[in-house]
C-alpha cells in the first residue's frame, strides 16, 4: 500500500511529472531559442539559458499591483502549472503510461484549456488594460486552435477504432499500443493531413511566432504578463516550457507511436529480458521521445518562428479555421470512409 502510494508520488514528482517536465521543457525551450538565433545568423543564448532565467526570476522581488486581486494574482500561475504537469502524466511514453485509466484524448483537449485559463484569469486580475487586450487575443487564439485539434483527435479516434474493431477509440494508451503493434499512424496516407494540421497547431497552442499576438512584446508588452514579475512570472515561463513538451509529446504519441514498438523489438531481439530489459526500454523510450520532441520543436516552432512575422489576431483565426481545419477535415473524411 505504502509502496504503491510512493510509486504514484514518484510519478507525480519525478517521472513523468515535475522534474521530468521541468528539465525537458526548459531544454526544449533552450534548443528552440538557440536554433532560431542560428537561423537568423545570431550567436544566441546558451542552451541552458531558460534555467538561468528561471532561477534569476525566482530571486527577484514580486510586485503585486495595488489594484490587483492578490489571491487570484498569485494562485493562478500555480494552478496552471500544476494542471499542466498533471496533464503530462496522462500522455504515455510509448509503452509506459503512468495513469492510463484517468483521462482520454477528449479530456486532454479540455485539460489543455486550464493553463490558458489560468494565465487569462491571472492577467485579468491585475486590471491592466494590456492584460485585457492580451486576454482577448489569447482567447481567440485558443478558439482558433480548437477546431483543428478537435478534428484531428476525432480522425485519430475513428482510424484506430476502425482498425481495432471497437468502432471508436479515445484512450491515448490504446492508440499508442495499436501503433506499437501496427506501425505509426504517420505511415498511413489518410493520417498525413491530420499530422500536418497538428504540427501547425503546435505553435498556436504554445503561443510562439507567428501566432503570438496574445503576448506581442513590442505591441502590448506581453499582454497578460505585463504586470507579472519575480517568481510568478518565472512560473508562467516554466508553464510555457512545459507546454512545449506537452504538445510535442502529444504529437509523438498520436502519430509516431510505432517507434516504441521498434525500440521494444530491438531490446527484446538482442536477447535481453526481465527487469533489465524493462528499464532499458524505458530509458531508450525517454531518450528517443526527447529527441523527437526536439526535432518537432525545431520543425514546427523554431523554423516557423525564424521565417515569419507576427500575424494579426483575425488572420490567426482565419488561418486556423480555413487552412488547418481543412487539412484535418480531409483526414477525418478519409478515416470515416475507412481509407
Amino acid at each position, binding site marked *: 500500500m505504502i509502496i504503491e502510494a510512493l510509486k504514484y508520488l514518484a510519478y507525480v514528482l519525478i517521472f513523468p511529472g515535475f522534474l521530468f517536465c521541468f528539465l525537458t521543457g526548459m531544454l526544449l525551450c533552450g534548443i528552440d531559442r538557440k536554433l532560431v538565433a542560428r537561423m537568423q545568423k545570431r550567436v544566441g543564448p546558451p542552451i541552458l539559458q531558460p534555467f538561468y532565467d528561471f532561477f534569476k526570476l525566482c530571486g527577484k522581488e514580486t510586485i503585486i499591483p495595488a489594484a490587483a486581486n492578490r489571491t487570484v494574482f498569485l494562485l493562478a500561475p500555480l494552478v496552471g502549472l500544476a494542471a499542466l504537469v498533471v496533464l503530462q502524466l496522462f500522455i504515455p511514453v510509448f509503452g509506459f503510461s503512468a495513469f492510463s485509466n484517468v483521462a482520454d484524448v477528449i479530456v486532454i483537449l479540455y485539460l489543455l484549456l486550464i493553463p490558458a485559463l489560468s494565465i487569462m484569469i491571472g492577467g485579468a486580475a491585475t486590471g491592466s488594460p494590456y492584460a485585457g487586450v492580451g486576454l*482577448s487575443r489569447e482567447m481567440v487564439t485558443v478558439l482558433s486552435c480548437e477546431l483543428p485539434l478537435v478534428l484531428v483527435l476525432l480522425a485519430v479516434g475513428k482510424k484506430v477504432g476502425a482498425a481495432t474493431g471497437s468502432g471508436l477509440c479515445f484512450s491515448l494508451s490504446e492508440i499508442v499500443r495499436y501503433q506499437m503493434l501496427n506501425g505509426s499512424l504517420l505511415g498511413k496516407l489518410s493520417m498525413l493531413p491530420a499530422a500536418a494540421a497538428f504540427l501547425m497547431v503546435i505553435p498556436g497552442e504554445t503561443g510562439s511566432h507567428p501566432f503570438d499576438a496574445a503576448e506581442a512584446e513590442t505591441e502590448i508588452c506581453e499582454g497578460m504578463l505585463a504586470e507579472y514579475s519575480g517568481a510568478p512570472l518565472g512560473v508562467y515561463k516554466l508553464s510555457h516550457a512545459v507546454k512545449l513538451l506537452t504538445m510535442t509529446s502529444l504529437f509523438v504519441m498520436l502519430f509516431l507511436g510505432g517507434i516504441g514498438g521498434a525500440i521494444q523489438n530491438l531490446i527484446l531481439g538482442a536477447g535481453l529480458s526481465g527487469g533489465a530489459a524493462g528499464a532499458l526500454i524505458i530509458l531508450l523510450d525517454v531518450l528517443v521521445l526527447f529527441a523527437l520532441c526536439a526535432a518537432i520543436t525545431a520543425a514546427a516552432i523554431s523554423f516557423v518562428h525564424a521565417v515569419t512575422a507576427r500575424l494579426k489576431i483575425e488572420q490567426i483565426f482565419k488561418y486556423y479555421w480555413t487552412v488547418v481545419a481543412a487539412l484535418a477535415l480531409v483526414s477525418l473524411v478519409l478515416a470515416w470512409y475507412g481509407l
Partner: protein
Amino acid sequence: MNMLSLQHFPIYSIMVLFLGAFLIVIFGKSKVFRHAVALLATFASFFFMAMLFKPVMLEGQTIAYWMGNRVPAGGYAIGIALEVDALSLFFGLLVSCVVFIACVYSIQYMSHDDNVPQYYTLFLMLAGGVMGLVLSGDLFNMFIMVEILTFAAVALTAFRNTANGALEAAFKYLVVGCIGSTCILAGTIMLYAQVHTLNLAQMSALIPGNLSTATKVAFALLFIGFCTKAFLVPFHPLAADAHGAAPASISVLISGVLTKSGIYGLIRLSYFLFQSMALGTMQFWLVFLGSVSMFVCVTMALAQHDFKRLLAFHSISQIGYVLASVGLCTAFGISAGLYHAMNHTLFKGLLFLAAGAVLHETGTTDLGKLGGLSRKMPHTTVLFLIGAFSISGIPPFNGFASKWMIYQATYQKAVETGNIGFLLVTICALVTSTLTLASFVKVTQSVFFGQLPKEYENVKEVPFGMRLAMGILAAMCLVTGLLPEAVTRYLTEPAARAVFAVTDYINNMMGAGYAQSAMTAPPAVQSVSFASAGVWSPISWLCLLMIALLAVSIVAIAGKYDRVSVKSPENLGGKYDLFYGGEQTVYSQVGGDDLFWGFKHNWRHYFSFMHELHSGVVNDYSLWAVVALALAIVYALIVL
C-alpha cells in the same frame, strides 16, 4: 389507503405549492408568515419527491395515483391520474430542488421590492405548474399545467414593471407563449377525438398503431407547443427578453425549470405517445434542431452586452445539447442528455443568481459599465467562476462530465449508423463548448476583473442568504462533476431505462397485459447499453492535481513566492500602479461586448445577418412560430 403511503406523495408534492400560493394571497401581509410558508412549501415539495427516490429510482417501481380512486373501468381511463416513473421523478427532483434554492435566495433578493406577496404567490404557482406537468399522467392536465406556468412566468417577467423593457418582454412572451399553449390544446383535442382518452398511458398504447392524418397533425402541434416551452430555435429571442427583464430568482426558474418542462414534454411525446423515435429521420431532426439551437444561441450570446441576456442565450444553447443527446435514441445518449439537463439547471441557476447579486449591488447588468468587482465581492466572484467553468465544460466541474458523455454518445451514434450528420453534431458540440468558454471569459473580464469604475467604489458583498443559495448550487456543481458514476447510476440511468420501458409504463397504469392486447405492434425491446469508449475519472484527476498543487505551493512558499517589499513612502511612487507605458494613469477598462473582436471580425457577415434577423418585433417572432408549425405539420404528414 393510509394518508402517508407513498402513493399520495406525488399529489402532495404538487398540492403544497398551490396551497402555499393561496395562503400567501390571503395572509401574505406578514413578512415572517409569507417567508415561512414559501420556504416550507418548497421544502415539503422537495421532501416528498426525495421520499420517492428509493422506491422509484432504486427499486424500479412506477407510482400510479388516481384522484378520487377513479381507476380505469371498461378499458377506458376516465379519472385524473398522476404517474411517476423514473423519468418523471428525475425531473420532479430537479425542479423541486432548484425551486427550494431559488426560494432561499428570493428572501433577501426581493426584500427591497414592492408587492412581495404577489411575487411569492406567482413564484409558487409557477413551481406548482412545472411540478404538475412533470408528474401528470394525462395529457389534458399537462395542458392545464402549461397554462398555469406560462401565465405565472409572464406575470413574473413583468414583475419589475418599472424596469426598462419588462412589459415589452412580458408581452412578447405572452404572445408567443400563447401560440405554444394553443398548439398544445389543439393537439390534445385532436388526439382526444381520435382515441377517446386523455390518459398518457392509454394513448401510448392506442396511438402508434392507428396513425391517421389527424393524429399526425396533432403530433406536429404538440411538438411545436413543447418547443416553445423549451425556447428552442426559432423561439429563442423570447427567452432573452424574458430572462433579461425578470428578477434573477425567476430567471433561474425560467431557464432551469421551465425549459426542462419543454424537454420533458418532447420526450413524453416522441418516445411514449407516438413512439416515433425508432425512425431515423425523427432522430436526425431532433438532433439537428438541438445542434442548431446550441450553435446559433452560443454565437448570439457572444454578441450580447447584457449579463442576463447573455446567460439567457446560453440557456438555450445548453438545452440544445440536451435535445441533441436525447434525440439520439440510445440509452447512453438519453442518460447523457438528462445528466446535462440536471447540470444545466444547477450551473445556470448559479450563474443567474450571481448576475442577480451583481444587479442587487450595482443596479446594472450592462457589461460595458461594470468591472473590477472581484475586490468588492470576492465570494460572489468565486461562486460565479465555478458556474462559469461548469457551463464551459472545464474539468472537473459537472458541465464537463455531461458534455463529455454527449460527445461520446453522438460520435458513437455516428459510427454505428454511418451517418456523417451525427459526426458534425459532435464537432459542433465540441466547438460550441469552447465558444461558451469564450463568452464567459468575456463576462469574467468585463464584470469581475479589470478595473473598478468610480461609481462602484462603495459596493459591498451580498447578504449571507444569497451567498448561501449560490454556495449550495456551487457545491452541487462540484459534487455532480466529481461523481459522474453515482449520478448516472442512481439518477439518469434509471430515467433512461424508463424511457425505453413504454410497455411497463402502460401496463402499470392500465393493468397488466393491457399494452399487449391493445397495441397492434408492441414496441421492439431496445438494447439498453451504457457503455462508452472513453475514460474519465475526475476523482483521480483531482487527487493528482491536489498533490501537484501542493508540491508547487510548497516549493513556491519555500522560495518566498509572495515576498513583497514593504510599501514605504519612498518606493510607493508609481511602483504599485499599473503599467501604462509611461502615459498618464487613466481609467481604461477593456471589456464589454466587443472583447473578442478577432473572432467577430471573421464572422461579421454572419453576425450582421443574425442582427437583422432578430428584429425584436413580436410580429416577426410569431411569424417564425407559424412557419415552424407549418414545417412540422408537413414533416409529420410525410414521414410519420
